[in-house]
């Protein structure tokens, strides 16, 4: 092979590598295509990262955005879907790679994760009085909305705060067959009814199940027996002291431990995921369980004929100690990227997501109480299931102090606490229930660890946070809390 031919082959190979490496640019325009032709006044593409949840959400969102595109000819909405448990990581990765979505779904604590990293665009410049007026009166107060940070609106909701209610669902037929004409009102009644139904069930019908393998039912029932902050963080916000070993919390675990030890609960619940409880209930396997309200629509979809009742949660035998918390008016859901190149168009999409039409369509599709109550309230009152949920929400929810919103120090402390999941009762409670261990000594040990954590963290945060930031001595868990208290 001559030197010239060899040289030519090398040149050809080098060219091929170079062409491959730059292939994307050659195939595309060679320019950033994320913004399309905004400058020329043509179409703008807005990417929306969301989760295809609940079932059917993919088709629903696409249909809604198709409608939006028809009404807004200059904007195309590109949907990016991620599984619920991977959404945050996926969006974070997109930010790190320099290609974030324009609008993304980040729920609850996930929003704060994004906010703390400076990835969220303030919405203050877009908000109008008309926009605020869409939401129930008082719910957009910056100190209690749950959507504001440092007094500015940063995120928009999807569902109403009333959707945070927890209820007891029960199978009326099963209860009636076992001689009960009403759901339990106390934990004692719940246990007695569950035992009877399981004993009569012949191994195919059981009285009760604890919602999921993480024993979510303990948390739900404990909301009636101890201040919400004990359930959430192991700290009583009325005293600022660790309180996992408080009587209500301990009894919530012990109730389940007794029923587990005696085989009262549906076997196999220990490995259930979040969807299994409503599937089993719809199949008639169990008579009752405490749950979030979205299960109810899923049960109806699976078994439209089921005779299902919805009741407020049963309370401890000695009486109610606390209510289901309303920590804020709304949960954060929709946020705009701080790096979007098209804030106006991104806001148009967000405005649509917070419109009465979208809220009504979402409610009609999934049965969830959306943030704009006027979109669904009348219909909900006429629907037996939804009227029961609304009634339970009005009866069993109370506004509580939320240190995350009330002070910077409170936020710092609770964020630090969230970094120590082992201090929460969840794993210890499951261990006690499954392995039949008394919970009180476990809870007392947890309280010691929480106290050590508080001492250590307060020392680290000296000057920015004090125990007073998470202490509200005037707060009565049986009454609505107002920030002025």
């Amino acid at each position, binding site marked *: 092979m001559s030197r010239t031919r060899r040289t030519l082959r090398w040149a050809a*190979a080098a060219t091929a590598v170079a062409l491959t490496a730059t292939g994307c640019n050659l195939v595309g325009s060679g320019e950033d295509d994320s913004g399309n032709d905004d400058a020329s006044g043509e179409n703008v593409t807005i990417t929306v990262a969301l989760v295809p949840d609940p079932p059917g959400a993919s088709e629903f969102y696409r249909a809604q955005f198709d409608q939006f595109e028809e009404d807004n000819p200059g904007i195309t909405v590109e949907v990016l879907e991620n599984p*619920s*448990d*991977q*959404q*945050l*990581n996926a969006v*974070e990765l997109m*930010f*790190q790679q320099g290609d974030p979505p324009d609008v993304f779904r980040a729920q609850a*604590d*996930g929003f*704060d*994760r994004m906010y703390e*990293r400076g990835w969220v665009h303030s919405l203050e410049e877009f908000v109008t009085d008309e926009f605020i007026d869409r939401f129930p009166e008082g719910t957009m107060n910056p100190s209690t909305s749950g959507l504001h940070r440092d007094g500015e609106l940063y995120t928009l909701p999807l569902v109403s705060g009333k959707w945070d209610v927890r209820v007891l669902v029960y199978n009326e037929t099963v209860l009636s067959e076992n001689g009960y004409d009403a759901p339990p009102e106390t934990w004692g009644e719940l246990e007695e009814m569950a035992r009877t139904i399981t004993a009569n069930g012949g*191994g*195919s019908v059981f009285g009760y199940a604890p919602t999921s*393998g993480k024993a979510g039912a303990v948390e739900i029932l404990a909301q009636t027996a101890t201040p919400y902050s004990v359930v959430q963080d192991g700290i009583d916000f009325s005293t600022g002291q660790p309180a996992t070993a408080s009587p209500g919390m301990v009894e919530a675990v012990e109730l389940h431990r007794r029923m587990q030890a005696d085989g009262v609960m*549906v*076997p*196999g*619940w*220990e*490995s259930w*995921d979040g969807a299994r409880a409503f599937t089993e209930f719809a199949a008639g*396997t169990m008579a009752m369980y405490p749950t979030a309200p979205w299960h109810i629509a899923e049960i109806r979809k699976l078994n439209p004929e089921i005779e299902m009742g919805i009741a407020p949660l049963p309370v401890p035998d000695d009486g109610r100690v606390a209510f289901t918390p309303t920590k804020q008016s709304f949960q954060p859901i929709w946020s705009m990227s701080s790096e979007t190149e098209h804030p106006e168009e991104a806001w148009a999409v967000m405005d649509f997501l917070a419109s009465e039409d979208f809220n009504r369509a979402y409610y009609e599709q999934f049965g969830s109480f959306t943030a704009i109550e006027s979109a669904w309230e009348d219909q909900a009152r006429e629907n037996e299931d939804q009227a029961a949920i609304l009634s339970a929400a009005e009866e069993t929810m109370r506004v509580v102090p939320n240190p995350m919103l009330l002070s910077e120090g409170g936020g710092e402390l609770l*964020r630090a606490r*969230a*970094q120590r*999941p082992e201090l929460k009762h969840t*794993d210890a409670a*499951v*261990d006690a229930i*499954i*392995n039949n261990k008394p919970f009180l000594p476990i809870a007392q040990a947890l309280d010691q660890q929480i106290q050590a954590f508080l001492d250590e963290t307060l020392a680290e945060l000296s000057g920015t946070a004090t125990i007073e930031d998470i202490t509200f001595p005037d707060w009565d868990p049986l009454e609505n809390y107002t920030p002025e208290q």
Partner: protein
Amino acid sequence: MASLLAPARRPRAAGRPRAARWRRHAWSYAFLIPGILLFGGFSLWPLIASWWYAFFDWDGVGAPSNWIGFDNFREVLGSGAFWDAFWHSFLFSFAALVIELPLALVLAILLNNAWLRGRNVYRLALFLPVVTTTAVIGIVFAILLDPIRGVVNTALTDLGLVGSAVNFLGDTTTALPTLIGIDVWKGFGITLIYWLAALQTIPKDIHEAALIDGANSRQSLRFVVLPMLVPLAIVILLLVFQRSLNTFDLVQATTQGGPNYATDVVPTYIYRFAFDPFLQAPRYGFACAAGAVFGLMTLLITLLQAPLLRGRYKAGAT
């Protein structure tokens, strides 16, 4: 004879300039480049980077900056949950080595017989679980093993083998053995293929020579086949050991490490700290440290087997 058939060695290019040798092998090096780039980018770099990240308190966002030395390693080594998960991972491997490996060999010897009718069908049936998506397997087994309506429990109770339904995946005492059983079943096909490939490297001539020399089938297996399998068996053993030690998808799809972490393995432990959406911020640095410790322990266990394996290898090779 063998030496006569061996290709003649080319005279060493003594004194040839280095540049000429480079030119001579230039294409070989050029073809190596993509492989080296891919290996470097997707194997070597992540490995080195994860070790580096393990020394930081890092949530995965931006460049790691909070250097904490060996704190993450100390936390991992002092974590009871990590060692529980490690023990569970080890049990997966142990079961694969003492159950899956010999059982697959027995079946491979059977299926390697030319007189066995329909052997390809059997091979296919045994290999099917390998190519079935683990998530599907997880769902199917959860249904089969359900304590209320599962076919397995119905059969067991109807036959009177158990008094009441067995809570296979929900009981802390049965969940891990159940998952190990499913893992052995799922991995069985690939181990079988390894053994079949190894068996097919043994020349027929040697079998025939053994038979002519008067050996029966059992003697042929004992004194001819098995010794010749030893060098490949060592490779198969290491492959099975590594695969089973890294079981993740099956656990994640069926129990997510529950109930109460009874089936937690090191990969699910790492996953929890790196990606759990319920953590306020992921602990990538800590997860990297757990991965590094796990990698080191795996290496150590592999090396511990080395003297024994080397002896067996030499014995088999001679």
